[in-house]
């Protein structure tokens, strides 16, 4: 992929910092994402991965740092409500616990953002929603409520909700961590398809197999700082730092067992 020098820079975050009650959770994170990148954000729990992702979509307000997105540059701490709304319209966020709208059907979950937030016509929104749901294999459950679906099905609908918005970038926050083991595969396979279509994705995950086989870049965090970042192949075969080497080794050892 690196041979294509003309690839568009999609997102660049610089010096992202965040404190919770005086505790530094992010200590100046830099991150560059180009169009079509699938970046796996890895690291032990408490390393700040999820907070980073949430700061990029303003679910948490960062204390410092800048965000360049789609040709626009914004101070994270100073973004206005309008900035936030404009940026979010170009992104999709998939949560660990799905967060489907509990009072809406599968179809309504996908169309609500299109009709209410983007003013799309109802029939047009429906058409687009059905296409997105077909893609994740959920078009046969249009009228079901979230409570009637398995976790894996809910997460696939959540992905369809993102897809329908035709985002520039997909944020995934540990999308399989809340799932029963036998349901993880169906969600990962949908994500794999998205990656193969060349969609830009930023994925916080503990699924090392997925990170290794699907992602193009890795960002390895610990204690709110970047320990290593670079192409996935390099990270898993030739980790640059002692810390990432031992992380990779512990994971490989885990898989052996």
């Amino acid at each position, binding site marked *: 992929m690196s041979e294509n020098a003309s690839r568009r820079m999609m997102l660049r975050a610089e010096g992202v910092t965040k404190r919770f009650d005086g505790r530094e959770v992010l200590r100046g994170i830099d991150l560059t994402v180009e169009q079509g990148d699938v970046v796996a954000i890895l690291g032990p729990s408490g390393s700040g991965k999820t907070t980073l992702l949430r700061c990029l979509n303003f*679910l948490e307000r960062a204390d410092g740092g800048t965000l360049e997105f789609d040709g626009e540059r914004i101070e994270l701490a100073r973004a206005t409500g309008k900035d936030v*709304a404009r940026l*979010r319209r170009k*992104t999709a966020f998939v*949560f660990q616990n799905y967060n489907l709208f509990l*009072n*809406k059907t599968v179809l309504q979950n996908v169309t*609500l*953002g299109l009709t*209410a937030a983007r003013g799309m016509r109802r029939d047009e929104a429906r058409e687009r929603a059905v296409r997105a749901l077909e893609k994740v294999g959920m078009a046969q459950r249009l009228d079901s409520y979230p409570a009637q679906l398995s976790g894996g099905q809910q997460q696939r609908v959540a992905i369809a909700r993102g897809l329908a918005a035709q985002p520039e970038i997909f944020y995934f926050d540990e999308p399989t961590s809340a799932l029963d083991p036998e349901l993880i595969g169906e969600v990962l396979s949908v994500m794999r398809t998205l990656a193969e279509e060349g969609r830009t994705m930023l994925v916080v995950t503990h699924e090392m197999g997925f990170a290794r086989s699907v992602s193009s870049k890795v960002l390895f965090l610990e204690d709110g700082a970047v320990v290593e970042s670079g192409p996935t192949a390099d990270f898993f075969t030739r980790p640059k730092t002692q810390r990432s080497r031992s992380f990779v080794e512990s994971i490989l050892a885990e898989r052996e067992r």
Partner: protein
Amino acid sequence: MLEAIGAFFAQMFSSRVWGILVDSFPRLLGYFLRVSIPLTLLSFLLALVISVAVAMIQYAQVPVLRQICRFYIWVVRGTPLLVQLYMVFYGLPSLGVMLDAFPCAVLVFGFNEGAYMAESMRGALEAVPRGQLEAGACVGLRYLQIMRHIVLPQAFRIAFPALSNSLISMVKGTSLAASVTVMEMFRQAQVINGRLHESLGLYAEVALIYLLFCTLLTFLQRRGEKRLSRFGGVK
């Protein structure tokens, strides 16, 4: 005790009392349907509007308005309904504010129950998972859209039993309007009693009409809850 119960029925079914009850029933029921129920529904509607507004102001932590809402709840919940009725109906005219009995009752009942319902609604709003708001924001909805499409519908479902409770309590509470000259069922019973002197029978009849209507509401509440549960539980 048993003797008292026996005496009660003996008196109720004496032909004189029975005749009074049968004669007065259509009249009492008429006042119930034409006055008590409209009074209840209007007051409840007002209480609902107040409670949603007050709960949302607190939920969204709107400065100043929020303190005003807390003050309103504090005062209204801390003073007796009957005293509030008297103050507004008999007291306010001395400040030049003169209200007819019926609208005065609607206002007092609405503001009174509104304070209790606001607390039910606030609790329900806070019970809607935070992630629902975040997901709404991420699909591009503005705050009020999130409230309207996602949070409020879920909060209403959570608050439904508590709101039903308020409605049922309000049905009976409307009998207090008799004390500020609203000619509703209870006051009508007092009028009839003034002529015929049959307190026990007449007031028991009034109680029975309240009971029957509240039974109907309880039944509707159960049906409503069943319907709402089709959408699945709130996690």
